[in-house]
């Protein structure tokens, strides 16, 4: 039982970070219909910016804030340079452009920062774990989770109450109607990419606090896919719930199934789970249901 609770809690904590990255993914899809496979590299970019600033002596919170700003600007630039030219192209083209971008970013990152693991030094969060009722949770996890939740709330508020957020909602709902009401779709796409960079970057920075940062942190970007498929591609609450469920599932399968299938079950479980979801509920928990039997 204690083992179960331990895995559950750790899973929820990790899931918070996944949810943050999944949110960025969903936003891009909802607003511009782009299925972004470069999410992992966006987390890498953010994480490396934050880490470099931190190693230069910038306090962590300020470094995170700067990461947000730089990430946002990078997002705008990426959208303008590459994605803007692809509006109206077939889905495969756009997906493959994001794949190409992911290689491009990854190559550039590896070229600049190398492939060795780097850590936040000195550690941002105290190393001493907290023990509640026999369950041990590292402080890193707790703070990361809190940061993820705060950011999620900020994003939610942004969508509900600000002018930019509302215009994004409008574009996602009906692009034509939004255009006729004077919402600039190009502006909204740019903002969506900016926010995706931000959420992925912060997720990456938090995650690299836990295990250190190297190029394989970009794997997070692939884990996001099961999360968004589970939640429904175009549903923001779905992305959050999906992220947390995938985090929990990953930890539970790592705890219980590792005995039977030694090795990488923890990394594979989300993908197997995803295939099962696709068979029975291809539109996820709250996605748009467009039934088309083929």
């Amino acid at each position, binding site marked *: 039982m204690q083992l179960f609770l331990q895995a559950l809690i750790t899973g929820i904590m990790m899931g918070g970070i996944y949810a943050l990255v999944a949110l960025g993914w969903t936003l891009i899809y909802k607003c511009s219909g782009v299925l972004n496979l470069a999410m992992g590299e966006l987390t890498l970019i953010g994480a490396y910016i934050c880490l470099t600033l931190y190693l230069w002596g910038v306090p962590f919170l300020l470094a995170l804030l700067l990461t947000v700003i730089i990430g946002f600007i990078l997002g705008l630039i990426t959208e303008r340079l590459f994605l803007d030219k692809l509006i109206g192209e077939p889905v495969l083209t756009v997906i493959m*452009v994001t794949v190409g971008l992911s290689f491009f970013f990854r190559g550039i990152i590896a070229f600049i920062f190398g492939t060795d693991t780097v850590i936040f030094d000195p550690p941002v969060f105290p190393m001493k774990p907290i023990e509640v009722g026999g369950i041990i949770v590292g402080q890193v996890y707790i703070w990361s989770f809190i940061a993820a939740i705060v950011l999620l709330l900020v994003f939610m508020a942004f969508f509900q109450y600000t002018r930019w957020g509302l215009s994004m909602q409008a574009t996602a709902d009906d692009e034509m109607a939004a255009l006729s009401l004077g919402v600039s779709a190009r502006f909204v796409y740019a903002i969506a990419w900016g926010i995706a960079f931000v959420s992925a970057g912060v997720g990456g920075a938090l995650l690299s606090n836990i295990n250190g940062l190297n190029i394989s942190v970009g794997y997070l970007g*692939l884990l996001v896919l099961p999360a968004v498929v589970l939640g429904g591609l175009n549903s923001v609450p779905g992305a959050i719930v999906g992220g947390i469920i995938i985090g929990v599932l990953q930890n539970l399968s790592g705890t219980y199934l590792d005995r039977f299938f030694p090795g990488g079950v923890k990394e594979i479980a989300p993908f197997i789970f995803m295939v099962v979801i696709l068979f029975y509920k291809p539109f996820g928990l709250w996605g748009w249901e467009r039934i088309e039997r083929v």
Partner: protein
Amino acid sequence: MSYLPCGVYHEVYRQDHAFWQTKFVIWKMILLGVFIFFVIPYFGGLYAISVTNLIFYTIMGALGVQLLIGYCGQVTLGHAAFLAVGAYTSTLLMLQWNVPYLASMLCAGLLAGLWGILFGLPSAKVKGFYLIMTSLAAQFVTVEFILTQYVSQIGGRGQAFSLPPGTITIGPMVIDTDTKVYYLGAILTIVLTMGLANLLRSKVGRAWVAIRDNDIAAETMGINIVTYKLMAYFVAGFIGGVAGAFWVSNLAALSPEHFQWFWSLWLVGVILIGGVGSLYGTIFGALFMVLILEALKFIIIPLTPLYPAIGMKMMSLKDAVFGLAIVVFLIYEPNGLAYRWWQTKNYFNLWPFSY
């Protein structure tokens, strides 16, 4: 299809159905054959031969991707899984049970084809982005999990199966030099490409193209979509398996490292740059991608004295160039190299009356 040369007309149906329709094409193909079988091996040198081996492997791997994406409309980002299944089947059969190489290659193709059917099953129910996700699952489940964790344990050889010289034999001949691998690769590539080209001209191929263009319309015309999709997966898997088994002959040791997700994406990149929906595109794409990376090496080697770390960072630079090439091609040349080839060919075919 390109146009017939100016002034050439078919008079009987047999001409219309011919694989190579004019004398000129036949001579061109003979010339190409001479080039492949005599010019490169005798005058190319070992370096050219080893690069060409890589090109053959890329062409064979990309043929399956071209079939799935370009002719049947089933996007796959996990084709390296089928290559891996083929390579491992062939290696295990040779090492564990001493099966002859060519027989093991056939078994590799069949098993990879069945593996393709298994992971093609979701295509009966989902399509588009969701199908891409299942192909991703195919990649990770096959290579990162089953092969790395379980298959690699068979025979207690450790993570990599080493292939001692003399393992790979065809009859009495031992395939041990690059030149022999080259001939094998050339024959396999030609057989597979022509086989696929002929299959695409048949009823099956037309059904695939119909499914690609509009699946619902195809179904109303009486095409059993699920059967034909699975058939496409089988053929793609078969070609992939044979390609994987071929690549074994070029390796000293086989490990899952050779079939990472990067390689799946690489194959998709090859057909995107070459041109989707064209067998020429597969070949041009493979040539372009392999040669551009070799050229990159030649640019980097002189730079090494100036900036020593650059040799180490070659791999990451390679990734970046590959990514940028895909992006630039998709934005500025979405029809790929094959389209330019088609235009050039038609210009000469229609000359002097281009309208």
